[in-house]
């Protein structure tokens, strides 16, 4: 770990602190100021809505990052747990008139338990077979239970829409992009710090041990089954939070938002960002969202000669995303987080980089 010279820690607490030098503290204060004050005040509605999409992607990908990046359990069905969170919190609010924070917590817990249910086979199978099981989780949950049964609850049709004013935290009604942004940023900060702290504890180290070599971990006394299920639970909770946030953002919930392709999308996001890194989750989400938004502007000048580009932008976006995953895996397999470390190292060691 890099530390500038002249930093002397006198207590373990200082040594283990998150922000260890004045420079880092100042940097983080500036970052928080930017996220909480400058950006929301200065940005226009469009930028705020893009930021909300980034936040949703970060929240969705966080659980996948935990499972794939830290626990080594490949999952291709995470959208199912996001969907469970979204539906449980929506039903809690619509059918039982519970307040939004309660719905969010209920959704998160329900998603966590549902995720544990599908994590059970992970005790027996791994690799390809585990991937198949998680895919089955996706189809059984979203395409069967939610589409066919849960959507019938309350007779609203498959598309649950939340009347304006339903989503409120205490007296504070969340009805504009800016307020959604604040909910998002608080959730992202909570989840990220929660994850980062969790990864420094016994639990996190056990996960990393399982990822690196499950047989060795077992031999060293890590209860693999327990920790794998715990990983599924936490990942499901994070997915549930993402789902519950999503309904506050678009005030509706429908099975179409949680298709298999969204599961694949968030796995792609963490691979682009870098598996096994929390920075990676955030970088990946920002990179892919911003690139695709940028693409939207890039094709505007072309749209006079090729109007199809604009009409079918959704598919251009899909193709670009697919190409981005492939190219990243071929040329930058460790993701953006690794590149970020390299850049930081360069400046830390400059001008004597040997």
């Amino acid at each position, binding site marked *: 770990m890099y530390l500038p010279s002249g930093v002397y820690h006198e207590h373990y607490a200082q040594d283990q602190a998150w922000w260890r030098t004045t420079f880092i503290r100042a940097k983080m204060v500036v970052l928080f100021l930017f996220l909480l004050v400058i950006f929301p005040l200065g940005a226009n509605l469009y930028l705020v809505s893009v930021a909300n999409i980034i936040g949703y992607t970060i929240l969705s990908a966080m659980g996948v990052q935990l499972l794939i990046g830290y626990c080594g359990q490949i999952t291709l069905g995470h959208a199912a747990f996001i969907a469970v969170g979204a539906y449980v919190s929506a039903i809690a609010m619509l059918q039982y008139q519970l307040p939004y924070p309660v719905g969010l917590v209920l959704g998160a817990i329900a998603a966590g338990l549902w995720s544990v249910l599908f994590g059970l086979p992970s005790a027996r199978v791994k690799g390809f077979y585990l991937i198949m099981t998680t895919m089955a989780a996706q189809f059984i949950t979203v395409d069967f239970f939610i589409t066919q049964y849960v959507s019938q609850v309350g007779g609203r049709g498959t598309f649950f829409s939340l009347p304006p004013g339903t989503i409120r935290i205490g007296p504070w009604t969340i009805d504009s992009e800016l307020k959604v942004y604040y909910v998002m940023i608080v959730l992202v900060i909570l989840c990220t710090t929660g994850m980062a702290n969790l990864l420094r504890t016994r639990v996190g180290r056990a996960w990393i041990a399982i990822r690196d070599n499950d047989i060795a971990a077992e031999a060293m006394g890590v209860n693999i089954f327990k920790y794998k299920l715990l990983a599924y639970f936490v990942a499901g909770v994070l997915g549930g939070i993402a789902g519950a946030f999503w309904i506050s953002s678009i005030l509706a919930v429908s099975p179409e938002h949680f298709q298999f392709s969204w599961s694949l999308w968030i796995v792609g996001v963490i*691979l682009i960002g870098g598996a096994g890194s929390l920075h990676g989750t955030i970088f990946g989400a920002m990179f892919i969202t911003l690139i695709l938004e940028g693409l939207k502007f890039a094709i505007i000048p072309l749209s006079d000669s090729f109007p199809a580009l604009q009409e079918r932008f959704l598919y251009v976006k*899909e193709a670009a*995303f*697919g190409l981005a*995953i492939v190219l990243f*895996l071929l040329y930058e397999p460790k993701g953006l987080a690794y590149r970020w470390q390299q850049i930081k190292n360069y400046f830390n060691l400059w001008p004597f980089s040997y």
Partner: protein
Amino acid sequence: MDLFLQLLITGVMVGSIYALVALGWTLIYKCSGVLNLAMGELTLMGAYVCLSFYTWGIPFPLAVVGMLIIGFILGLLTERLFLRRMVGESILAVIMVTVGLSFFFRGIVAFTWGTDTRVFDPPVFPAEPIRWGRIVVGQVYVWSFVAALVMLVVFVAFFKYTRWGLSMQATADDEMAALSLGVSAHRVYALAWAIAFMAAGVGGTLLGNINGLNISVGYLGLLVLPAVVLGGLNSVPGAIVGGIAIGVLQNLSAGYLSRFTPGGIKEIAPFAFMVIILLFRPYGLWGWVKIERV
């Protein structure tokens, strides 16, 4: 009983199409160890290429041949450009490359051909159904069955009797030994992808003839997975039997179980079945028993 026979026969006929696509999947897995999640998009590509040729007025058999040639070239290109560098990478990286390819291909297909359902116009096969006693089967099913069988026989003969097919078998069996005998592994991988593209293209074309062609034909690529899990991942006969079994299972569950649920059982039954197989017999019917438990 009539209903059962009816469902069974239709199931076998649709299942033979699945078997064809599953064969392509197994081939890639057997030869190069790549778990391909882009199979559905390969079927889409092939089917739309064939449809385009057909709507330009090229007769159907020639359109299929043209599609096969283009599929062959695309298969070689895909392997050369994207998969060759991934040899020996982690399972997640390889799978995600195919996922990336599937997004890429699906984007291209939807961009080029749109998302509306397209049909082969004029219909390739006569609409008049064939009757055996009280069982009625559409001609398109019968012809698809015949076509799929012909393709399967051609592929199996190719593996058994040609030099290329034998070198593929050798690589699948023991790559190191095959290399030492002068078999080019890269060429085998490329050929596996080319054949997978061709098989998937034929499968997609046949399904497009049955129900019309839209982006959801790509769902076939996911149905292949239960089929190969049932048959055993690296078994060619297993893929064929598994494909037919999944077709039958799908039809039977649609016929008998759909009254108990609001719907969607047809889509979900193969995956529920797959989970059951994974729990009790993860290596399928004829796969190599090589399961590591921790």
